């Protein structure tokens, strides 16, 4: 096909594709050079290292250049490129162009590569004697990520998926045989409306920085095995692991906050496979951090520490496989489709798994595995046990989330649990009980050895106090009505908070080192308390038992009805609130529904009033997409979202209807003969004829001497609101006309149809909108109690991580100081 296509801009794409290939080549060069730099016996020969560095710098520059080309393409709406066409549109605001980057798989691979490049540069700068082996591994990881973007055909199979592929190459279609096809492609598909949210600008970069940073401890663990430096890798790996935990944790919770604030699944965590996948490496790395400390202090648990660090990065790759290969198909609401990378992703996982396993096996005999048993009453022993339980909890998540993978491998037809949320909640809560108790009582143990009597007394006193407080909390919030395990988690989490609060109190007495871990643990405890109470006792406020029956059978078995119907301006009682749908406001492309909430006390006084504006987008491509709005209180949230609304948005033709057409939207007119001061009642209120206004005129119609125009001024009261309307009756050139007036908010149309001079009355026709034609919304409201514990716990935990990172970095600086002591005293951690 040698058609010359008109209007295409091929340069940015060719440039981009060049950088994609350069990024791959330079990463490969870097990895190979660093490998030889590591194995080189002549330590004075720096040439391999120099080559490795050059390779990595070129890779970093290429990675940034890829983004520049892609940005140029999206920014200039070059829809001849598939990526721009699929993920952006002309109407997209500039600040969301950045979100387009990670809507597609290629963009999110790029993000991963970018962060890995940043971290690699930091390592080149900071890693000193570790640079060569560590960068060999990072270079390998970078090579594999870059290969995902290649989009090059080798021996008939396409390797990777390039963001610079042209639309006509990506899609088959007769239109693409026309040289002027571009003139028919006016606009792109646009960004998924759910991603047009400021959280979506920052959540993916944070999450991917978390994922990417897992490669660093992994690389250190590999380097430690490779170079047989079994002790020294711990210290730097610990700092980077803490960093990884902090960032990934923040990223995951940001995603959960985004889901809570702008998705409509009614909660902050749904145990969706994609959510689980992002949590897997976090859990194992948290375990790893603890065991690394154990190993550093006692020399025990070397294997567990290495294993957890290694598996964390393998799980990052596995998570990537799960969410990008399309394998989750039937089990996840996140619609990820296979971009033809399934086997590529499998190979990626296997390479790193194989590398880790091979090295561990090769070095197995020399690994510093202790034969001596650990002291039972030492902190390290129980930290180790805690890490094991974290590993088990992760094991469960992997097992259930991977059900589609088992089906794929073994050809079985298992389905995930029918009630996945309940299944995950109960099992994960059981692990959480063990872990919170361990996080609590371990604080009372000393490193190495503890006075047992004192330990038992303090532990039990604190446990009793926690049980007491927990009992009150559980009773007051209603958690006790749930599965008993949730009460135990609440008590355990309170125990964690209290025990660590004691440690924190000791900090002020001078034991400053432990502050970081204590703060992080308190944050973790609060997260659990918040999650259990908010998720466990959230209640649907919009319970609705109206609605005509669809047979007894349906009524008996159906779940509580959770959606409530609101006609415009018709207040409804809902869970202590008087709720009214009062109007709309349009800020294209969003359609906001103004929902007024009032609390009225017994005497009829309004004690509280606020407005929530949940919105929907009637998207051409995706239908109605709704986002909730939430009223935040200190101790609970009121969450409201629209599940159904008769809006058509862009698709609506607002063509002018003729008068008869318009009348079809109303019930048949009812005529009333009234004099000034009379009242007309209608279904939803009443109206009073205030005056007949003889000086009315209708715009653009000039009246002559014999012409008459009379207006009937009405005051209308409907559902507590007052409106005015003045329909006009006109005689012009001997013909009678009437000019109807509509009161949309009251669903009324008034016509002044006749003057009856002999009775001094006028005839007014009242047209009412039937309910089915009135504007309405169907919405759902949920109350989430104590959810702020969840968010504030996260922030506290991040602060704790930060404090720990600073502390470990100080230690690292001491270890790397020019004259290290023979045995650095780092006993107390």
């Amino acid at each position, binding site marked *: 096909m040698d058609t010359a296509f008109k209007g295409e801009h091929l340069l940015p794409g060719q440039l981009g594709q060049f950088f994609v290939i350069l990024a791959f080549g330079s990463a490969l060069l870097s990895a190979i050079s660093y490998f030889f730099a590591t194995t080189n016996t002549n330590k004075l020969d720096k040439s391999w290292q120099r080559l490795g560095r050059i390779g990595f710098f070129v890779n970093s520059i290429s990675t940034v250049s890829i983004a520049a080309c892609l940005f140029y393409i999206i920014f200039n709406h070059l829809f001849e490129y598939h990526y721009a066409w699929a993920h952006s549109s002309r109407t997209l605001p500039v600040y969301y162009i950045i979100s387009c980057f990670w809507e597609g798989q290629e963009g999110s691979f790029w993000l991963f590569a970018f962060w890995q490049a940043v971290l690699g540069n930091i390592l080149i700068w900071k890693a000193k004697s570790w640079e060569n082996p560590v960068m060999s591994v990072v270079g390998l990881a970078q090579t594999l990520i870059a290969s995902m973007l290649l989009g090059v055909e080798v021996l008939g199979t396409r390797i990777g998926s390039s963001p610079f592929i042209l639309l006509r190459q990506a899609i088959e279609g007769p239109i693409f045989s026309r040289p002027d096809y571009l003139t028919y492609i006016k606009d792109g598909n646009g960004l998924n409306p759910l991603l047009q949210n400021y959280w979506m600008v920052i959540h993916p970069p944070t999450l991917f920085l978390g994922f990417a940073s897992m490669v660093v401890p992994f690389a250190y663990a590999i380097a430690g095995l490779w170079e047989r430096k079994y002790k020294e890798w711990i210290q730097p790996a610990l700092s980077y692991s803490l960093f990884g935990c902090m960032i990934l944790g923040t990223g995951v919770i940001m995603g959960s906050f985004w889901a809570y604030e702008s998705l409509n699944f009614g909660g902050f965590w749904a145990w969706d496979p994609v959510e689980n996948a992002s949590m897997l490496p976090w859990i194992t790395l948290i375990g790893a951090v603890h065991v690394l400390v154990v190993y550093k202090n006692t020399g025990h648990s070397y294997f567990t520490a290495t294993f957890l660090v290694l598996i964390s990065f393998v799980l990052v790759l596995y998570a990537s496989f799960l969410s990008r290969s399309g394998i989750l198909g039937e089990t996840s609401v996140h619609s990820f489709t296979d971009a033809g990378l399934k086997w590529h992703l499998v190979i990626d996982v296997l390479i790193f798994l194989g590398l880790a396993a091979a090295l561990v096996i090769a070095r197995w005999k020399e690994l510093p595995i202790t034969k001596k048993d650990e002291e039972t009453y030492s902190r390290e022993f129980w930290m180790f046990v805690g890490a094991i339980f974290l590993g088990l909890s992760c094991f469960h998540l992997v097992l259930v989330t991977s059900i589609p993978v088992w089906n794929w491998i073994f050809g079985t037809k*298992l389905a995930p649990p029918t009630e996945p949320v309940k*299944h995950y909640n109960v099992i994960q809560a059981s692990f959480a009980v063990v872990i919170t108790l361990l996080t609590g009582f371990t604080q009372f143990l000393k490193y190495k050895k503890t006075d047992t009597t004192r330990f038992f007394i303090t532990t039990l006193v604190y446990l009793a106090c926690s049980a007491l407080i927990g009992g009150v909390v559980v009773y007051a919030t209603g958690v006790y009505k749930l599965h008993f395990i949730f009460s135990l988690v609440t008590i355990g989490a309170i125990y964690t908070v209290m025990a660590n609060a004691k440690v924190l109190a000791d900090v002020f007495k001078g034991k400053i080192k432990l502050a970081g871990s204590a703060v992080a643990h308190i944050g973790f405890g609060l997260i659990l308390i918040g999650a259990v109470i908010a998720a466990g006792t959230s209640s649907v406020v919009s319970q609705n038992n109206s609605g005509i029956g669809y047979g007894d059978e349906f009524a008996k078995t*159906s779940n509580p009805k959770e959606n409530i119907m609101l006609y415009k301006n018709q207040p409804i009682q809902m869970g202590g609130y008087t709720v009214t749908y009062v109007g709309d406001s349009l800020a294209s492309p969003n359609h906001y529904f103004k929902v007024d909430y009032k609390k009225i006390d017994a005497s009829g006084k309004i004690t509280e009033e606020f407005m929530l504006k949940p919105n929907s987008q009637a998207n051409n*491509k995706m239908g109605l997409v709704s986002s909730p709005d939430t009223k935040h209180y200190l101790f609970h949230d009121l969450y409201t979202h629209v599940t*159904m609304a008769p809006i058509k948005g862009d698709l609506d033709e607002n063509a002018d209807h003729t008068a008869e057409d318009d009348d079809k939207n109303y019930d048949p007119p009812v005529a009333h003969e009234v004099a000034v001061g009379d009242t007309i009642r209608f279904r939803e209120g009443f109206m009073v004829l205030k005056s007949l206004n003889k000086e009315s005129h209708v715009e653009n119609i000039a009246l002559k001497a014999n012409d008459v125009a009379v207006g009937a001024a009405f005051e209308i009261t409907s559902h507590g609101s007052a409106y005015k309307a003045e329909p006009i009756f006109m005689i012009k050139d001997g013909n009678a006309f009437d000019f109807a007036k509509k009161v949309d908010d009251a669903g009324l149309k008034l016509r002044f149809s006749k003057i009856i001079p002999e009775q001094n009355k006028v005839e007014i026709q009242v047209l009412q909108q039937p309910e089915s034609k009135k504007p309405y919304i169907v919405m759902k409201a949920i109350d989430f109690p104590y959810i702020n514990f969840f968010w504030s716990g996260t922030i506290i935990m991040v602060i704790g991580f930060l404090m720990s990172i600073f502390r470990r970095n100080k230690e690292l600086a001491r270890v790397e100081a020019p004259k290290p002591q023979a045995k650095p005293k780092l006993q107390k951690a």
Partner: protein
Amino acid sequence: MKKSSIIGIIVIAVAIAVIISTYSSSSTYGSFNDASKTTSSLQVVGHLVKDKELYYDAHKDANYFSFYMTDNKGQECKIVFTGTKPQDFERSEQIVLTGQMVGKEFHASKILMKCPSKYTQDKVEITETKAKTANI
């Protein structure tokens, strides 16, 4: 006995417990025929019958939605869902329902639908583009 062996035993015990509990609570994808034979809830995969009525009238009941679906064995059944019509339901390609048979109707407690994603939507877009071409 050494402590490490005790821990090993505990780990294995917990792991086995987890596997068993996962296996016992995992279900199988069934057909409407399977559903009519059991009273417990199960998951059915199938396709929306696009030429039959999707019934949802918020004015009558905001929490009643019914439609017809054929399962993977080709059997057709009326589905009743307590809730609003999921967004963009008409376009769904594949539906996974969780629920149980009540008489001749399948009452779903959960609907998971797969819509044509942005990748496969490509085809649709082209036919639209073609229609435009014809207009000119």
